[in-house]
């Protein structure tokens, strides 16, 4: 680990000042400190924001929820407002990491967490994300867990967050605060596809702080849930995952929110699947038909071609689990 300075702030203003001079925000530390140990991350200054007042969950007028950026994963998962209104969020959180990590990690940190690509995390390997211009060792390396969607010549690393997949399905908005003021960015635009600049992972200006995540109102009733497919039953990142939230009225799907994880360089909104669902009546055939569009545009690599079928099946399964109509 490289030496670093450590500052603890108790006010947002002080945090922003520290961020503006290049300090890196530290919340639960479950990603950043790991990566510092591997020398993937080498911040000169850590700004501990744990004491900032960003730890509440509140209902928004007109429906929807505001999740403070420093809310613990475990607290969010069991919060009554979350659990009753957005089970997909609770489930995505509870299928993440381990209880110990969920007790430490924050929601803001979760959506900012960096990829699990083994070559990114091994500083002796070529990685455009870690060291732009050095190449991508994963593209022709061991890439079983890598992305099939949203990849570029420069990077094929999978976005690891489950929470972000659920938030992406629900159309959540990330609230940002910088010295220049506040911004609101839909999560689908906040987390960036790698393109030619895989080192740039978020629409985050220097020193900007994630303060909250807003889940917008959805028509009710909304049934939702998260399915995560992985090799072992707990404590592993997704091979594939599906977040589904459906508004079914009078037996007809009026609104469909579907996103996939484990397959994209970013949380992957399945617009084609959603379109295939809206206006239809739940049925086993519909789920399969809609899910067959899940891997549109996918580009498999040597070891992850199985994800194409697995993604479709994962989405179909979760559509059935949430939408019924077996």
């Amino acid at each position, binding site marked *: *680990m*490289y*030496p670093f300075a450590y500052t603890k702030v108790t006010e947002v203003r002080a945090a922003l000042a520290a961020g503006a001079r290049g300090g890196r925000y530290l919340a639960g530390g479950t990603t950043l400190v790991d990566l510092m140990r591997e*020398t993937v991350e080498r911040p000169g200054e850590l700004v501990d924001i744990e004491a900032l007042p960003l730890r509440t969950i509140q209902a928004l007028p007109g429906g929807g929820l505001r999740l403070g950026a420093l809310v613990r994963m475990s607290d969010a998962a069991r919060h009554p407002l979350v659990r009753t209104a957005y089970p997909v969020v609770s489930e995505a959180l509870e299928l993440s990491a381990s209880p110990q990590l969920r007790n430490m990690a924050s929601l803001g940190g979760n959506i900012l967490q960096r990829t*699990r690509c*083994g*070559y990114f*995390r*091994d*500083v*002796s*390997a070529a990685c455009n994300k870690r060291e732009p211009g050095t190449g991508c*060792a994963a593209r*022709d*390396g*061991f890439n*079983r*867990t890598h992305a099939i969607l949203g990849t570029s010549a420069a990077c094929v690393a999978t976005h690891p967050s489950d929470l972000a997949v659920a938030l992406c399905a629900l159309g959540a908005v990330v609230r940002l605060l910088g010295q220049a003021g506040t911004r609101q960015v839909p999560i689908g635009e906040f987390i960036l596809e790698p393109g030619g600049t895989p080192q740039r992972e978020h629409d985050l200006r220097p020193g900007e702080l994630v303060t909250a995540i807003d889940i917008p109102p959805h028509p009710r009733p909304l049934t939702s849930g998260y399915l995560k*497919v992985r*090799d*072992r*039953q*707990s*404590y*592993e*990142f997704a*091979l594939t995952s599906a977040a589904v939230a459906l508004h079914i009225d009078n037996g007809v799907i009026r609104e469909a929110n579907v996103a996939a994880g484990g397959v994209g360089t970013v949380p992957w909104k399945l617009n084609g699947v959603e379109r295939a669902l809206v206006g239809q009546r739940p049925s086993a055939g519909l789920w399969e038909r809609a899910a067959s569009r899940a891997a549109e545009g996918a580009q498999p690599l040597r070891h992850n071609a*199985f994800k194409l*079928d*697995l993604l479709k*099946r*994962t989405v179909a*399964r979760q559509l059935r689990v949430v939408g019924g109509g077996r």
Partner: protein
Amino acid sequence: MTQPRVSMGSGRPRVEGRLKVTGAARYAADHQVGDVLYAVIVDSTIGRGRITDVDTSVAVTLPGVRAVISHRNAPRLPYLANPLPNNPAQGERLHALQDDRVHFFGQPVAVVVAGTLEQAQHAATLVRIGYDAETPSLDLASAPANEPITYARGDAGQALLDAPVRLDVTYRTARNHHNPMEPHAVIARWEGDQLTVWDKTQWIFAAQFELAAVFGIPQASVRVLSPYVGGGFGTSLRCWPHAPIAALAARELGRPVKLVLSRRQMYFGTGFRPSYEYRLRIGADRTGRLRAMTHDIRAETSRYENFVESILATGQVLYSLPHVSQHYATVPLDVCTPQYMRGPGYANAAYAIESAMDEVAYRVGVDPVELRHRNEPTEDESTGLPFSTRRLRECLLAGAREFGWSERPRAPRSTRDGDWLIGTGMAAGVYDTARYPAQSRARLDADGTAVVEAATSDMGPGTYTSMTQVAADVLGLDMDRVRFRLGDSLMPFAPPHGGSATMASVGSAVKDACDGIRRQAVTLAVRDPRSPLYGADPGKVVVRRGRLSVRDQPARGETYRRLLDRAGRDHLEAAGSFEPPTGEARYSFYGYAATFAEVAVDARLGIVRVRRMLGVYDAGRIINPVLADSQAIGGMVGGIGTALLEHTVTDPRDGRIANANLADYLVPVNADVPALRAIYVRGEDPEADPLGVKGLGELVHVGVAPAIANAVFHATGRRVRELPITAEMLQ
């Protein structure tokens, strides 16, 4: 005179359990050694080639850094031949920091020593090594092989041609790493020419002999201490290069040096279960009677040593077979030398053979358990010797009964539970009853307490406890009056703590020493006119709870304490030893297992979950059923890992281990481990050793993976011939 069995056979809790759960037990790196410096290894980042430059200019300027040692500035060490048999017989071990050759990715190429661990870690990342890289050879399937080891009986080639039922299948198993909880760790301290090492080791003498050989000093000049071992599974049977590196650094700097491998480094400079390609051709008749088996086996080894293990025995002794041909070729690759890992060889052989037996069972339409019964041999057909004990039939019968095997539908893919396909499978297993020469010493003090010692280890099976049980019963004391000590090279010689040999070998030596003490006491008593036992037949004197008495006259007796007080003795002591029978073998010695598994497979999503398992073992006498269950459960958990999760991935371009961490190298978590049950068939093995034990810790892992793989076939109708079985193989 046989002592009553009080402790032996009963499920006593671990005597060191409280120390472990309270954190008081000191593992290698926990020892507080004054004035210690911290060492961190720099690993090669190429898979083969030469070091052309070692740039330490930045590293040495950092605060606290005391030295950066590489082949450029390390003294040349003698590296004498090590006479112990735990290194491969062919080839030469890695000489750490002695030359510019890189043999595998992650090889130690330098070491940084600093005043704190953090300083050393940081400086290690700033040592710049230049390389002239070559393309490593890493393909097990295509690389040229070493001269094979072969075995033949009968004419397998012709018998295969003649057999009405033929199978020709190839199974593949992944490389696995041991991944014990405790990483390799060592503290080295020199006092003049005397080296003291606190090491994590499964064999005190492996460290002692290797360090003595590397530095060219007498064994007696190296003292090794290793009182607690946080899991091993075989990885600590050998002294890996980090130990000489730590000792070298300590000698160069004149200060004690502590060196702990990172989890990532646990995949680099230490061994692993090699990956295998195992082609099996089987000929059988239409009733499932086996006629012939041909085994063509390839396994990875390093280019600098030829690692071989017991992959052949299973194919020779498990079933009755007139015609067997075996061809076992190791394939030198640019990798670290492999190392024994739980059930070494036997587990891989069982996977291939027991999977193939399952295939034969379906081919001929015979129940898999019945197929094993039909091929039960009456003797060891590789030697013609009788089995000392062989209770595989009992294992199969008890397993089938307790597992509910008879309710199993014969046809694959015939049970469904929602989205899950349910299947059951079973496999037999065999493991060598290993025994090695061992020594011990025991001392009984006049206060009626005893201390027993042997330089063995306890990596988790409960050696502290089981040896205490043996000593307590043989001495006729309660367990809390006996203290068993281990893990110090000044103690009597013990063999490697591996191969399930410790109970049979060290346990028998402990029994011998304690027998010696009890006999001394009995002799004192029966010859002492003042003793109530004066004149008694020594053969009829027993000791219970520290009191000697005539077996049929419990009132006639006295305590050790009174006896010794009156004799003016403050203690009795005795040395003990065990020598396995030498000369012409009279028996064939093996332990046996039958493992049954139920799995649920979500075939659409490629998910396999083990629902329950049962292992039935013929391991001879069970000294402590609680510890035995702990072993059995651990062996089954490890088997779940082998079958479904564990796979060390090598990047073929440069030999990089692509998943050198516990987030990407998957081992089972609690959620993957369902109800696991173990049963031990009754009976000891009096021919094997004085305790009648056959060894358990290896056996419980053998047969687990094929039982799961066979259950996956039964659930899905799909035969995957590769481990681990993962989602992409089941789509």
